């Protein structure tokens, strides 16, 4: 029988572009939650550490405390929002059943991961950029190697976008999901040298800090901005890159298999 329903022309790239667009629209529609709230939070940190306590503190010779802490606060915004975007979007899809709408489409696992990741990186970058813009009210950053700083921020965003996907797949409910950010990411960020250089810590805390993957991201990013760090930029980038690759492979495997997505 001849099909009189108009025939469709297919474009292999379109599922990816559409999913990316949908993911961007998703966080844009609730910008007050996804963009404004983290920006206000980061601004409060900037005010506390940049304008009030910052004037009385000095942790690194040659730099004000605000100059030291701002790179960490920017990266914290990037990390938290990249994680929140992939984890909440995918988990909500799983939880509310909307994931089925994607599972029946020709969206391939690489397109799926890439779309979710790029949207998360965009949100992370937007928050990071606004936090940096606000930070200029409190201190001027030396911008030692701006391209490397952007590269490090993108790597951090990519890494946490992957982690968000993995967390969303394994989370059983909203409580489990918030545990990842409250009991894992937040302590690792705080202990990873956002507010202090780990060199001022007594042993064994200094050595233990080297086991914290967040330390390499924060230190590498700060190193690229102020030109000084607890470890070399190469080591920081190498370790962070290896972790990002590992998480990407894990996320790709889970999504490729449809683990906890397809029954």
């Amino acid at each position, binding site marked *: 029988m001849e099909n009189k329903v108009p025939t469709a022309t297919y474009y292999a790239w379109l599922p990816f572009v559409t999913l990316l667009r949908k993911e961007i629209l998703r966080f844009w529609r609730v910008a007050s939650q996804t963009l404004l709230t983290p920006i206000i939070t980061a601004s409060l940190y900037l005010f506390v550490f940049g304008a009030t306590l910052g004037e009385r503190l000095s942790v690194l010779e040659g730099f004000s405390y605000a100059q030291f802490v701002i790179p960490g606060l920017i990266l914290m915004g990037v990390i938290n929002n990249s994680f929140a975007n992939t984890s909440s979007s995918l988990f909500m899809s799983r939880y509310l059943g909307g994931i089925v709408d994607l599972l029946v*489409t020709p969206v391939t696992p690489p397109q799926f991961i890439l779309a979710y990741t790029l949207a998360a990186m965009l949100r992370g970058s937007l928050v990071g950029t606004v936090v940096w813009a606000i930070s200029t009210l409190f201190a001027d950053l030396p911008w030692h190697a701006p391209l490397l700083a952007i590269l490090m921020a993108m790597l951090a965003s990519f890494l946490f976008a992957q982690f968000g996907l993995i967390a969303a797949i394994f989370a059983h409910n909203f409580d489990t999901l918030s545990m990842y950010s409250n009991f894992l990411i937040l302590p690792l960020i705080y202990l990873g040298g956002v507010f202090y250089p780990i060199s001022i810590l007594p042993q064994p805390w200094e050595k233990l800090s080297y086991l914290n993957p967040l330390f390499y991201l924060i230190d590498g990013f700060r190193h690229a901005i102020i030109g000084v760090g607890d470890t070399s930029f190469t080591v920081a980038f190498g370790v962070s890159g290896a972790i990002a690759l590992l998480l990407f492979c894990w996320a790709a495997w889970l999504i490729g298999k449809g683990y906890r997505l397809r029954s």
Partner: protein
Amino acid sequence: MTKALEIENLSKSFAGVPAVKNVSFAIEKGEIFGLLGPNGAGKSTTINMIAGVCRVGDGKISAFGYDNQRDYRFTRRMLGVVHQEIVIDNFFTVDQALKLHAGYYGVKDDPDWRQLLIERLGLGPHLGKVMIKLSGGLKRRFMIAKALIHKPQLLILDEPTAGVDVELRHGLWDFVREINRQGTTILLTTHYLEEAEQMCDRIAIMNHGELIALEQTHELVRRLSNRQLRFWLETPLLELPVEFNDYRPQLQDDGHELLLCLPSGESAGALLKKVCALGLDVRDIETDQSGLEEVFLQLTGLREGAGGE
């Protein structure tokens, strides 16, 4: 000729419990095919495996000649699925969601086609509403529009009218018939057996994960249903003659009405002769044929209620 859908030896278990057991059937292009069965029969699992929501356990599924695992990018473009559960994304309006869904399938938005679906499904006044604001019936209609937006060649409807009022059900089925006439193949499950009987060219019945019947709808009903003959008698019959034991006899209206079930293969004329031969004075006679529901209950061993999965 390539089939719209071909399923070979399909099996699936969940935690060691078989849900679908070695099911095979094929659907011709342009057909309306009904997949029926009681709760837990394995219909939705089968449909989910076809659609890609559920991994195939064992066996093979091909749509329009393409393997649905190896060539999933081709097969999924050709399928449109209306899920049993209402699946919506509360972030988007009806219009935005329809445009996005075309894109997921790699199809650019076709405003004419989208407008046609909107009009035929009565979604026009609700285009700017987010999903959560839609009534249950509108959500169902939106789901059908969403499944058709990429112009699939095979439309899978998994109980699309569950919980939908009569008027909307009729409207939906009219629309399904219309797109079928235009060449779209339909696979549907419904627990409204009368509708399945009216809609489907062929019907497969599943029970306990197995396919227990697969025939042309009218053949299935003719072969397995019981025709019942009702005789109105001038003189009441006080006791049932033993000659009627094979006909599941019943007496009603103080013996003025005699009901006999006509076995498959025996004509109503032959039974009338038997009744007259016993000296019963027949004033009037009526025959009625039980439908798919009776066949369904008989095959699945259910006597009360037939529901969806």
